[in-house]
């Protein structure tokens, strides 16, 4: 029994299995069994089991990957069937959706036919695949099959016509697309041939239902006029081509990136349920006991780090959004993951004995190419800004950049191998708790002469206002600190700063890979915070925000941490700050989302709310905004490194700002503020574009009383720089007296003229401040004038 009783349906194995012993059917069973065996052989040959063995000896610790299995399952289920992340890239998202659901539909259809023909019919002699059900299923399969073809054609068009530069090309990529296309097309061809030979003949019970197989019906046109014998002959040949093709395809899954159909859902199931991309936790006691830090051998990664190579199918989304790649630097996050996978597979040749036991090869015995410097280039390792765009966009939940941080950790802590300019940053953090190497005793100098409560005097406050290094030392960002002070004072916020007791948050040290230095800085801060019984913290810098909020927890510092935009948004909503004054010349405003505020902490709306409550300017979005925001180039310690390769990230972002048509770009991060201000200067766009931190705009627009508004005038516009003949200059030949940024900021001011030695009570600073008061940075000048008028 191979066909429907009613005549509305079709015979399974039409033209293939004749009367008598079903040779072809039995042959097909045998082939399917062989296919399944070859699939597993393929897994072995393709290196899958080898890689699993290598993962089994991985020594790196990892976060929990199997807790809450049910919610993990449903999360993965929703991701896979909902295509949430995949569809964030519309074109490739849509074609994947078509191929995915096309194949799923065809697989379901085939499974139903299989159950009908090979189980239900022979055992119970029931034929359910007929009438309405048959017609519906036929239509379903035809439509989805067609979608799959459209999807494949779109994929082919992308690969061979549009050719995005972030897409890599391996032979399997071509095989797979043409292979799938061939299977789909032959499927429709045999349908068309069968229909031409049967259903399309007048009098056939199916004659009136042919359009329930629309694609087959159209394909049949090609065969109109052929004799029955020809149709049967061609059908038989192409049927076997189709079936053998489909079986070969199943085998090829085991060898190729197609394995992602199993591995990617599994990888999503295993996703880290953490509040930021986890970087391996190094407990403080580890520094006393461990012999090596970070990763230089692939086995030092965690098993899940290595498993990421299975989840990745080289789609390249991470590459397409990477700020380093997009400015011609040698970093492609996908390749980092894949190179680690290939390296592991190579190393397995010596790590796995003939009897199957797997061992870790000690450094002395390993003679192959090193992971650092060969498999993954050092320039690649240093190019990352930790902007998290790769991790955020990855539909497979692969963690790309944390793998680079592990390599940095090894290079920095084990080998002292880092860009030369970082040495001064480390020393500055060690000796003066700031990356600029400015004397720690001057950390509170920005607050001189203005009304800022000190924690040491106040004793306790609801909020600790953690100013951070940029707010305390960088001229551009001191204005942000003072603006916030004025606003907090006006709003009657119960807050205090730590003054000189404050220390560097350590984010840059951590992301550069100096976990030891980071923890030293963090512990010092935590001790001070706890000493004042700090519960809530406000930060200026999103890096400090993220570090204090999330990273300090690992070291026992648990605080409620807010970014100032969250606080200001609230104060404005509560009516404690009223924005009544118009700000001249803002024009169209756009907001640059800081990576550490947006992608890391999901603070997208508060800055926008604030801008929208200004009485001037109107907000437009750049092409890349919210989670697609393009990094300014300063994260991951890149703030402190020379950008010698490719083009400059900040300039690319500045051009994107220009493209939005905005006249003002707002930032809420000192690094972004610096980078975009520099970008505007470097591209000589001062006439067309201005950068402001949101806090400054709120300060300008807020209806503050005169006393509160005094803070900006009170602060020195330019930090006195090192005098030429001060002992410091002579004495620290290897240490720069001021950082690049500070130097640049001070460029316009006659810095040396007004410089002072780091001497207490000399009064020189105030004098210097007074004398250069006129010399405000150009971008601020119009606004200042505006205020004076009022």
């Amino acid at each position, binding site marked *: 029994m191979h066909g429907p009783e009613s005549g509305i349906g079709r015979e399974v194995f039409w033209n293939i299995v004749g009367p008598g012993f079903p040779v072809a059917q039995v042959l097909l069973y045998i082939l399917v069994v062989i296919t399944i065996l070859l699939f597993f052989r393929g897994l072995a040959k393709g290196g899958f089991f080898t890689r699993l063995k290598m993962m089994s000896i991985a020594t790196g610790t990892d976060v929990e990957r199997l807790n809450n299995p049910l919610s993990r399952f449903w999360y993965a289920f929703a991701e896979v069937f909902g295509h949430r992340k995949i569809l964030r890239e519309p074109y490739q998202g849509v074609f994947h959706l078509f191929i995915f659901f096309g194949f799923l539909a065809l697989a379901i259809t085939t499974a139903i036919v299989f159950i009908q023909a090979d189980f239900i019919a022979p055992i119970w002699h029931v034929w359910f695949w007929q009438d309405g059900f048959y017609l519906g299923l036929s239509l379903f399969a035809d439509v989805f099959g067609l979608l799959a073809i459209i999807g494949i054609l779109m994929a082919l068009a992308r690969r061979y016509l549009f050719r995005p530069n972030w897409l890599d090309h391996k032979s399997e990529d071509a095989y797979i697309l043409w292979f799938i296309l061939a299977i789909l097309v032959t499927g429709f061809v045999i349908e068309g041939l069968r229909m031409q030979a049967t259903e399309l003949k007048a009098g056939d019970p199916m004659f009136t239902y042919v359009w329930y197989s629309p694609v087959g019906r159209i394909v049949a046109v090609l065969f109109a006029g052929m004799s029955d014998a020809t149709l049967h002959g061609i059908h038989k040949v192409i049927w076997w081509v189709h079936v053998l093709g489909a079986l070969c395809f199943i085998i090829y899954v085991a060898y190729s990136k197609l394995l992602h159909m199993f591995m990617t859902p599994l990888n999503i199931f295993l996703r880290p349920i953490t509040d930021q991309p986890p970087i391996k936790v190094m407990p403080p006691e580890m520094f006393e006991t461990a012999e090596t830090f970070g990763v230089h051998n692939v086995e030092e990664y965690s098993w899940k780090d290595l498993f990421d190579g299975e989840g990745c199918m080289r789609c390249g989304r991470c590459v397409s959004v990477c700020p380093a790649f997009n400015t011609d630097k040698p970093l492609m996050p996908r390749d980092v993951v894949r190179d680690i996978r290939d390296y592991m597979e190579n190393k397995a040749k010596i790590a796995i004995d003939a009897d199957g036991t797997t061992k870790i090869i000690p450094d002395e015995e390993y003679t192959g190419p090193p992971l650092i410097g060969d498999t993954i280039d050092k320039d690649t390792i240093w190019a990352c800004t930790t902007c998290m765009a790769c991790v955020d966009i990855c539909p497979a939940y692969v963690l790309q950049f944390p793998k680079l941080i592990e390599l940095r950790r090894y290079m920095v802590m084990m080998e002292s191998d880092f860009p030369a300019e970082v040495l001064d940053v480390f020393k500055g953090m060690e000796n003066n708790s700031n990356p600029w190497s400015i004397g720690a005793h001057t950390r509170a100098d920005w607050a001189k002469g203005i009304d800022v409560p000190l924690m040491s005097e106040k004793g306790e406050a609801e909020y600790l206002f953690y100013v951070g290094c940029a707010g305390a030392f960088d001229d551009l960002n001191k204005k942000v600190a003072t603006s916030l002070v004025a606003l907090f004072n006006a709003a009657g916020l119960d807050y205090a700063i730590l003054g000189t007791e404050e220390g560097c948050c350590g984010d840059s040290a951590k992301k550069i890979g100096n976990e030891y230095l980071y923890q030293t800085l963090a512990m010092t801060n935590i001790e001070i915070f706890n000493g004042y019984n700090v519960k809530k913290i406000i930060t200026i810098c999103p890096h400090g925000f993220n570090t204090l909020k999330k990273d300090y927890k690992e070291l026992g510092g648990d605080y409620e941490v807010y970014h100032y935009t969250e606080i200001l948004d609230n104060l404005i909503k509560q009516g404690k700050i009223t924005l009544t004054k118009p700000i001249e010349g803002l024009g169209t405003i756009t907001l640059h989302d800081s990576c550490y505020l947006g992608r890391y902490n999901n603070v997208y709306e508060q800055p926008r709310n604030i801008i929208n409550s200004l009485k001037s300017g109107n907000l437009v979005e750049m092409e890349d905004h919210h989670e697609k925001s393009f990094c300014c180039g300063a994260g991951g310690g890149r703030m402190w490194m020379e950008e010698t390769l490719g083009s400059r990230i900040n300039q690319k972002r500045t051009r994107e700002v220009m493209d939005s048509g905005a006249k003002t770009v707002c930032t809420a991060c000192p690094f972004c503020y610096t980078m975009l201000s520099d970008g505007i200067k470097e591209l000589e766009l001062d006439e067309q574009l201005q950068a402001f931190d949101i806090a400054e705009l709120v300060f300008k627009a807020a209806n503050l009383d005169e006393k509160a508004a005094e803070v900006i005038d009170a602060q020195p516009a330019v930090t006195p720089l090192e005098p030429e003949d001060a002992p410091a200059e002579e004495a620290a030949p290897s240490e720069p007296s001021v950082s690049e940024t500070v130097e640049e900021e001070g460029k316009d001011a006659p810095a040396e003229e007004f410089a002072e030695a780091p001497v207490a009570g000399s009064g020189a600073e105030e*004098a210097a401040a007074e004398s250069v008061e006129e010399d405000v940075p150009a971008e601020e000048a119009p606004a200042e004038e505006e205020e004076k008028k009022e």
Partner: protein
Amino acid sequence: MNTVVCMKQVPDTETLIKVNPEGTGIATEGIKWVMGPYDEFAVEEALQQKEKFKAGTVSIVSLGPDRAIEAIRTGLAMGADSAVHINDSAFYDKADPYATAAVLAAAVKNLEYDIVFLGKQAIDDDSGQVPAILAEMLGIPVITQVLKLEVEADKSKATVTREVEGGHAIIDVTLPAVLSAQKGLNEPRYASLPGIMKAKKKPVDVKTAADLGVDVGAMTVIKEMTLPPARQAGKIIEGETPEEKAANLAKALHEEAKLI
């Protein structure tokens, strides 16, 4: 290749310097202390020579109070093998360059050395005398402001490049000798984490001046120490027109600055 590096812990270059109430030195409270920046070059060079010869030891000798151990550990973390910490409260406060050299010489004599390295000067008192006095006391040659060092394979001789005004002098010297390091000699390394951890376990021999048999005292005394006067603020020359500004400038140069 055995070297001894004489190193001094000094205030960080960015730290706030105050004169002590007696006016005889700086107030030492609240100061961040570091290894002398020129001494870093000395330690680095000693380590590089040891690495080049693939043999020998690098010993650190430092005179200073308890806190000096931090700078000593920094040197050990960079890779030095052992240290002598001359911690003598009766001594270091009053020690002048002569007394310092005497106590260092006594310590160095007990050690094996082909070269004694120092920074060209300590950046706190800037006297720059110790290398020369030390060499005299050890009875060996001294070359100061070294920019480059090449040691013969048999360690009997070295070719040294030193800085002179506007140029370089290349000098042959027999070893052992005292060399003082100038900026440019090398790029001091950043101590690795294993280095820092190992440094905690490296031997540090704590001695007093008496232990070393030194009974000389300072031959000079600091009478008074003052900070440089505060710098005057700059002045912006006012004027409506460039001509008027120029006239006002000339006037100021003549009347106020008395330069013209």
